[in-house]
């Protein structure tokens, strides 16, 4: 346990040597990035695999590995963790009637909607406004909404897109936590 804490200290220092709090924030951002990457790569448990990848990265740094670019290094470690995960587990198969399952309203959908509302309310004002307006509408009206939204918050379209992405990630994470509790 001591070794782990010490390794984590090395990693945090590498992420930001001067500000421990900022290092912690960078750690969480990297953890989310890795989890997203592993999800895209069809990991069966992206969060655990991401944590494992960062744990190993920390230990490598503590052991004296010369890591210049932590993010790239951690992504590569994550790929190895994923390979190991795949060796251990069979990939989860889709239910045969997957589309029908979507079509039929289930209690679980209600739960998800319930969590969605809870999490939207828990989001900050700007994130909530961006989510609600950025992903609303279709076609031209959607494009117009986005332009108005960017103007309203003084953002470029690129910055708005990024902000919407991060807000949605935050929302999804909150919903997953909420569902896990219910």
């Amino acid at each position, binding site marked *: 346990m001591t070794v782990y804490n010490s390794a984590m200290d090395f990693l945090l220092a590498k992420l930001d040597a001067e500000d421990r709090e900022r290092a912690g924030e960078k750690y969480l951002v990297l953890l989310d*990035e890795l989890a*997203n*990457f592993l*999800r*895209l790569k*069809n*990991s*069966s*448990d*992206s969060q655990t695999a991401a944590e494992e990848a960062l744990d190993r990265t920390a230990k490598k740094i503590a052991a004296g590995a010369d890591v210049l*670019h932590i*993010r*790239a290094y951690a*992504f*590569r470690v994550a790929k190895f963790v994923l390979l190991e995960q795949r060796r251990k587990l069979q*990939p*989860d198969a*889709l239910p045969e009637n*997957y*589309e029908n399952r*979507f079509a039929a309203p289930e209690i*679980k*959908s209600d739960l*998800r*909607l319930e969590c*969605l*509302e809870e999490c*939207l309310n828990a989001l900050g*004002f*700007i994130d*909530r*406004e961006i*989510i*609600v307006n950025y*992903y*609303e*509408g*279709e076609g031209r009206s959607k494009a117009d909404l986005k332009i108005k939204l960017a*103007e*309203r*918050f*003084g953002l*470029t379209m*690129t910055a708005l*897109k*990024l902000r*919407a*992405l991060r807000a*949605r*990630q935050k*929302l*999804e994470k909150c*919903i*997953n936590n909420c569902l896990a509790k219910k």
Partner: protein
Amino acid sequence: MTESETIINNSDENLLRQYLLGELSEAESEALEERFIDDQVIFEQVLALENKLIDSYLLNRLPERELFEKNYLVTPEKQGKVETARALQTYLAGQGAKKSVPEKISGWQKVSEMFAAPSIWQYATVGLLILLTLGGSFLIVDRTRLNNQIAALQSNNPAVSSREEDLNSQLAAARQRENELQNRLREETGQSQSLVNELDNERKTRERLEDEIEKIRRIPKQNSSLAPELATITLRPEPRQGEMTTANPKIPIAIPRNVEALSVKLILPFTAKIENRYLVEFNGLQVASNLAPKVDPSGSKILRFVLSGKNISRNFGVEAALIKVKDLGKNVIADYSVEFKPQ
């Protein structure tokens, strides 16, 4: 726009799309992954495109629908992400029909407008709003704590029952004032400075209550045989010019020396308005603020407040005390002359 952002062009987007839909070979996927491993912006583009594909799929507007189902929707985590996106669309569709989200938060709409074209005043107002919100939260937390303290005291000492009544009545008034402040906060951002002052007064009142409760807490539990530490006095106003009253000025009041707190009930003149708030001065020293009048069983409008031990000891040696009740415009609405006679 940064250099990384310019890298993303249409052909890149097509490549990312193919990656997400599992149309790239392993070598092509590896090469692309190397790019976004080295560049966070590209990776964020991948994730944004993933959301776009999911949304299009759910709206039945994704041309590569089969590919998506076959190659993307292959893990519970991705299925969960799609279901969450579906829930979001359902929610937004409902909101689109009702358009209730902006209305629900219309009180805060002004804040968002400030971000659209920020100015020093707007930033200052946002700061004040945050301050007021924190102040309001503190009031709620503190009120709960005061209630708990009173509840704990109830079982300890019968001598404090009237004191509790006073504190409870003041806390009820504080609760009402909080609600009013919250309402005004929503409605009158332009008058935020005066709200800050009012909140500051509230904080002072609370601190005084806290001192009082602390004093009572220190009273030994089994000392009912001792002289009381708390006294209650009721005062009628002196006649003001052109006003008929049954006031009885300068009644000598005997107060035991060990009294640490004085509960004061002031009967207000009939001209006092129940909806107004008042402050009380004791020989020129403000001892209570923002008091809400109440109507007692006899139908008189009254103000209740407590003079703390500090005030008593400060004023006890004064033979004659002049208590003034003023409205928030600092107009005197009633005077009370008292003679304190220590026993």
